[in-house]
């Protein structure tokens, strides 16, 4: 029986989890710099002791409407990249047996299917486990950036 630990956090009404071994630290009220032209899920870049990393607005990433994702940031190191997840509040670190992971329903589509690895059943709901590699991939290479530039002007004779 293999047991893994997950850091639990909350965005809107959802309880979410990321692997605890990727966790560097949890921080409150880290300042970030907006990056004009970046997609909505990227809040900006922040500086953690000299390391620059993208700050991902988890509410925007998962399309959860009633979230603010203001004060807490979870710093993760996913493979070689650092990312910061901006969330509503932080819970505990909990251990689960991997075998108990419930796979997501197949009718999830697009970004959601990629984002979610599965869920664990808690007494009072589900703990949704996120695929941090997918988040990191999307944050490093944000697709769907707004094309910046002026519309070509019609030249009147």
């Amino acid at each position, binding site marked *: 029986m293999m047991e893994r630990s997950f850091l639990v956090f909350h965005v809107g009404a959802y309880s979410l989890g990321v692997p605890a071994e990727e966790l560097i630290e949890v921080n409150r009220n880290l300042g970030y710099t907006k990056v004009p032209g*970046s997609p909505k899920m990227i809040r900006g870049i922040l*500086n953690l002791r000299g390391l620059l990393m*993208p700050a991902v607005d988890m509410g925007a990433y998962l399309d959860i409407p009633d979230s603010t994702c203001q004060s807490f940031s979870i710093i993760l190191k996913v493979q070689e990249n650092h990312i910061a997840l901006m969330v509503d509040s932080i819970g505990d670190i909990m251990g689960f047996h991997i075998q108990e992971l419930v796979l997501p329903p197949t009718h999830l589509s697009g970004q959601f299917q990629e984002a979610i690895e599965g869920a664990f059943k808690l007494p009072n709901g589900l703990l949704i486990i996120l695929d941090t590699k997918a988040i990191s991939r999307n944050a490093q*290479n944000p697709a769907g950036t707004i094309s*910046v*530039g002026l519309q070509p*002007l019609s030249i009147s004779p």
Partner: protein
Amino acid sequence: MENHDEILAEFILEAREIIDRLDVDFVRLEEDPSEQALVGNIFRGLHTLKGSSGFFSLKRLEKLSHAGESLLGKIRAGQAELDFDKSTRLLEMNDILRQIIDGVEASHVEPAGDDQELINALLGLSQSEKISPAQVSAAEVEPELPEVAVQEDSMEVLEPPEIAFASTPGQEVVVPVKVNPEVLDKLMNIASEMVLARNRLLPFSQQSSDKLFTSAVRSIDLLTLELQERMMKMRMQPIYHIWDKFPRLVRDVAAECGKKVRLLQEGAETELDRILLDSIRDPLVHLIRNSIDHSIESPEIRLEKGKSELAYLVLRAAHQNGTVIVEVIDDGAGIDYERVRQRAISRGLISVEKAHTLNHKELIDLIFLPGFSTRETVTNLSGRGVGMDVVKNNIENIGGSIEITSVPNEGTHVKLKIPLTLAILPTLFVRCAEEIFLIPQNRILELVRFAPNEPNNGIEDFYGTPTFRLRDKLIPLLFLNEQLHLTSAPLKPKQKLFIAVLNFNGTLFGLVVEEVLNIQDIVIKPLGDLLRDMSNFAGATIMGNGEVALILDVDGIARQSGLIERLQTNPIRQEERYVAPVVEMISVLLFEIPGLHKIALPLDAIDHIIKLDSAEIQQNGNREVVYFNEQLMDLVRLDKYVSGGVREAQAHHARAPVLTCQYRDRLYGLVVKQVTDIIEVPAKLHELSTPQRGLNGCIIYNDQVINVLDLEEVLIMHNIQEESNEYPQVIDVYLPN
């Protein structure tokens, strides 16, 4: 076993040092065989190597170094002389020693190989002076060898320490420490974080009245500064770290080409950033090979030309105006311009007609084109498929430049200009839509301030492209907030904007920003994978307060805007248009400051005029403040910021008049000498041809020139001066990746 590994690793490090040293010494010895100290050095080096390899029972290494040592022993004893043949063999031995060490490092055991032929040759050479070569047969030498090695095994282990002690009686040996570059980078990172943490601490100490606390903070402040300086120094390394290998290189290349070359190195102690040092190594090797292979003639031809048989190759490094100049100079045949021309034609790089119109300088530029090689046959030296184009790219990638001059039959002169360090870039801090952005200072030609809401403000609409009339040129404008899709607060009626005039591939354009803050040296942190699609930004930096600011990519913005293409298809011609002047009157307050008698400020800019007793003025750090209307008011001495102002001793005027005004929600008091009048004047401002500091321009009233104070500029100057004291000039140290 782990312990053994550690000792072995140390041995490998030491052996490499010895072998590298031997390379240099052999070549020097060959040039000057009478240098006894050198022979001694080499002999000791080989001896140490032999001893240590015996300890690790590395038999191959031991036998080989023993053979070399025997030959050296003869040379040291004066029984043999080092000639070309011998030094070639010795260098060959050195190469094999190096291979063995590499093998040992990789697998912890000696790589297999047979060095018997070389050993025989070495031993043969060492005996040939006494015994005729015919007598030295392989069979005779071979059986002797293992015996000698085994016999010496036990005592050799003891000997090296003895030598070390003997050479340093009573004094401590300072051994340079080798540090992993990664550790160094980590340290740098920590040092820069330390600076930022210190910056956060400073304001607390300024507010605190606790003496012990403030003095502790001050010592942290000083230590951090020193730490940062030392860290920056640590990155600098003398260029001889890469030049060390060149004597051997020159010797080998020259030998292979059948040429005689003497290498001279000047300025080997010139220091350069470690990372830059690594990136100029390969270009330099290539240039040296090129010089020997292509430019320097064979000895016979040199003699025919009346030159000395021995060619000179000079490597020179020196600091010059904040850059490092590295030169490779030879006295060979130089560049054959005719052949360059023919080659360019035959390679299809250029048309025949065009080729014949090119001068020497343009022909040299052809050499840098990809796919150019003047040699008919590709040798294994210069022609490795790496052309001068790669050299040029490598140099330009680190912000350097390359320049070649060549005079036929006199030689070639290659000059590399390398920046001292990659890390630091002076940038202009600008504000746009409440965000701070940075523009690299070297891209900015000039800064222009203008009021977009005023009539006749210099902005003209050219078929939908806003353009600005800058002296006799029309330059297109890009508004930064539009380019970045930011929403700025609506402009206030008389708000002024700044135009940074930039150059994109020879086309001038203006980037409009709301505010110019200051110029500061910053450290670039590449965005890397992070947001690599953002072509509007070249990188980021961490400011003194720990916040991140983005560096604008001027080229990226120009390209993305599409403006440049539009200009190319539709070039703007200068257009004259007459705008009738509007006569409008405004009320101004006329006053004097020390040195200037007629100076005015629009009345609506001023809140109150008060008289201030010098006793009321208090110091806050280096600022003068007054408690006024239950607020803290900054006193601004205008004579400091206005051209023509004469600084007088302070507190000269016992009750000086002070004009109070608001700027960005802060209260300022302008100290003047005397308030004279309130008058109605025409609002038409005459711009000054050479902008005067602190003045907007002047108004002509009754044939009198009245200077109009530029309140905004004065207060910006005042604030910049204040802010620049807050943080050190260089706010961060470089962190690669």
